[in-house]
């Protein structure tokens, strides 16, 4: 009995267990894997299982460590990879802008709708994002193809003589990306806009400002946190997007997610795929930090 207080002091507190359970899981299955990606990006591809050379080798009581920088050199020298990174960033940037242009009025409309209608309107926007991503991209394959519904309609109306080539182009990728990611931008933007103090707008109106002026001098600057959080929710995943460029894009669509997939599955070059991933993470660090910063600002408001 007398041992008990002593044991209690040794045993970790409940707080310790609450922190360590999710922490361990994240550490083991989210943070640690990046160490392996980094490690394998410095090895060489080999015809073996697993298909790369080990970093450490124990030969004649000497521990050898091999760091191969060849993969990175290879990536920097081949213009294909640089082109792929550049394309991905550019396409992610343009589609984020398009999402903002379409999504901002939508989020604004929900936030200014009568209170009792807001949840239903928000649900209308979010419902498609619950439906399978794959199927939503697939839906556009049928719409955009050469003998697809849009082309049939255009030709039926006599607007065009020959079908427009839309599938397997960058245009189709933009449509697919905006379509798939739009709800992710509307949600944080709405959450921001709905919290605005509307008396500010009334004050501006009383002082004679037009609706447009009020919007650009009050609403827009106040919504910057929501805009950045939403924009990052679109931009970051789109940089590494694979499914959309694969299904809707063509040969002109060289995006880094697709290149990584091909290196891994078709060429079975795990080290080059890892090096591609490492550089992608480095590029995304700034946007991820931005997202985290504005996200926590939003939460603490």
């Amino acid at each position, binding site marked *: 009995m007398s041992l008990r207080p002593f044991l209690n002091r040794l045993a970790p507190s409940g707080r310790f267990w609450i922190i360590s359970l*999710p922490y361990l899981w*994240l*550490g083991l299955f989210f943070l640690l894997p*990046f160490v392996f990606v980094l490690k394998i990006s410095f090895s060489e591809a080999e015809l073996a299982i697993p298909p790369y050379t080990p970093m450490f080798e124990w030969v004649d009581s000497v521990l050898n460590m091999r760091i191969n920088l060849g993969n990175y050199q290879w990536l920097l020298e081949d213009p294909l990879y640089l082109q792929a990174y550049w394309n991905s960033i550019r396409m992610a940037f343009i589609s984020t802008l398009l999402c903002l242009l379409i999504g901002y009025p939508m989020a604004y409309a929900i936030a200014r709708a009568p209170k009792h209608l807001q949840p239903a309107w928000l649900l209308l926007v*979010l419902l*498609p994002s619950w439906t399978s991503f794959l199927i939503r991209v697939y839906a556009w394959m049928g*719409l955009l193809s050469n003998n697809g*519904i849009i082309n049939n309609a255009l030709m039926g109306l006599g607007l065009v003589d020959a079908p427009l080539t839309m599938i397997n182009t960058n245009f189709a990728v933009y449509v697919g990306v905006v379509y798939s990611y739009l709800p992710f931008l509307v949600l944080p933007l709405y959450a921001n806009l709905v919290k605005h103090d*509307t008396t500010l707008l009334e004050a501006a109106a009383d002082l004679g400002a037009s609706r447009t002026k009020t919007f650009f001098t009050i609403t827009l600057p106040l919504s910057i946190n929501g805009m950045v959080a939403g924009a990052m929710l679109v931009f970051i995943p789109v940089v590494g997007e694979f499914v959309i460029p694969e299904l809707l894009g063509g040969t002109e669509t060289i995006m880094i997610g697709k290149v990584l997939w091909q290196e891994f599955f078709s060429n079975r070059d795990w080290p080059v795929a890892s090096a591609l*991933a490492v550089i992608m993470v480095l590029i995304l660090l700034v946007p991820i930090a931005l997202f985290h910063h504005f996200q926590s600002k939003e939460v603490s408001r």
Partner: protein
Amino acid sequence: MMRAPRFSFVNIAFWMGIAFLYLPMFVLVVYSFNESRLVTIWSGFSVKWYAELFQDKQLMTAVWRSLQIAFYSATSAVVLAIFASIVVVRIKTFRTRRVFTTAITAPLVMPDVIIGLSMLLLFVAMTQMIGWPEQRGMTTIWVAHTTFCLAYSTVVISSRLIEMDRSIEEAAQDLGASAMTAFVRVTLPLIMPAVLAAWLLSFTLSLDDVVIASFVTGPGATTLPIEVFSSVRMGVTPKINALATLIILVVSLVALASWFISKRYNDKVAVALKSERS
């Protein structure tokens, strides 16, 4: 409250956006009942593609496997997320808190190809070092899905936990309940709608993932999205339209269910607050 007129620019933009979001799926559903093999030319109403769907043994196995993975992933993600939410919302002081909060939301935005590749490399290294996992398949997909569903679930649950009035739990503790009892008997029932919503969201996310599963799966363990993806790559077929229609139907029902759960909860809270004030 300044309200926009009914036919204002933003309202028209909103409904045009809604049309943009729904029309493609509507077309897909309509054409799943098309008799012709040619997916874009209407030749008559038929449900034969649905019949063909249910006779596809390989597909049905994949459906069952995906449902199991989604069930287990959602359950484990939600349990971990309850713990993680307590950490994010209530435990403000520990040394590596910033690392924790960043790591918990990072999977939300991390591209799928990176999560998939890094997870696979971890599993390969683990097999070499400790012999587990012996082979890749359902278990490895479950681990991977739990990890990214944990991020989404934590966002959903912690946003509810933040709004919770702590004094109720403190009252329970003043009356002699242990911290554990107070949490399980008082707080947990109050955040239950969020827990359920998080579970349903995780379930649909797991059911939908093709990229991560493709990386971490092993021989013979194809999931439904992997199966769909490989046939979609070949082009549009009416059979996939039929399958897509069923998935849209099921997922919409799940989403509506979770919406009603949280709406009923909100109404209850609103009523309770009103009666308290009067």
